[in-house]
């Protein structure tokens, strides 16, 4: 199966697990995604290899960036009627607090879904959703190849 077919099947089954398992990098990071109370929540499961600053310790900025970007892509695939693999055009992360050595959650909202371009905002938090560790906004190309 192509990755698009894997995503179609996962979406039809209402289970994102198959989609996550198909992508090596999401397995490497330890990402999980599930729908909770109608919202798609992406989780970065804490593991020692995600640490960027061992002294604090704090998560590597790249892992938070990858969580936010993945959450945005999952949201676009989840919400769109036809599966198109979104291509990131620009991605901007604001790092608000250091990410502690624990699970991190992210939720994305599509601010505009166009025919060619989608604009997405994403927030990531740990213990308190009102205290995000990082936020991002991203622009994706969502045209079929």
């Amino acid at each position, binding site marked *: 199966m*192509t*990755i*698009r077919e894997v995503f179609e099947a996962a979406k039809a089954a209402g289970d994102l697990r198959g989609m996550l398992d*198909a*992508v*090596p*990098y*999401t*397995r*490497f*990071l330890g990402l999980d995604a599930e729908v909770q109370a109608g919202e798609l929540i992406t989780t970065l499961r804490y593991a*020692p*290899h*995600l*640490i*960027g*600053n*061992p*002294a*604090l310790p*704090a*998560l*590597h*900025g*790249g*892992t938070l*960036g*990858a*969580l936010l*970007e*993945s959450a945005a892509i999952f949201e676009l695939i989840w919400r769109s009627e036809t599966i198109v*693999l979104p*291509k*990131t*055009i*620009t*991605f*901007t*992360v*604001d*790092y*608000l*607090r*250091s990410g502690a050595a624990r699970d991190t959650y992210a939720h994305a909202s599509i601010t505009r879904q166009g025919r060619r371009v989608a604009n997405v905002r994403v927030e990531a938090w740990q213990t308190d959703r009102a205290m995000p560790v990082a936020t991002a906004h991203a622009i994706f190309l969502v045209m079929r190849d």
Partner: protein
Amino acid sequence: MSDNKPRPGRGIELVPHNHALGIQTVEIERGMAVLKLPYDQKLVGNPDTGTLHGGAITALLDATSGTAVFSALTQWAPIATLDLRIDYLRAAEAGRDVLCRARCYKLTRNVAFTRAVAYHDSEDDPIASSAGTFMLHTKTGAK
């Protein structure tokens, strides 16, 4: 300093996530750093094409930009990324290592400003470019 041999012992590889990604130091000068992300199957974002996931490129740009800031400081100080804006210009090619060159082009008392480019062979054919800001002299991670 201009040869392309990885130079161990600079501490980049001691950061757990950089080590997990396989990031290596290629070159460091005052205010400038080149790091390498070797191609690895585990970092693939699209299994159909074998291209690396954007997240791995993000981590490389962040790590290289931070290294450029450290190299610009006259005295070591803890730093934290404030923001990072990335333009994805084209897909990284399957099976090929990605290099990243970052420059800390402005250093103020509190903030460092960086630009970075990720590429295979030449910065003139970039995969991604970024602009970042870093807070200097952060304490215990609180910003």
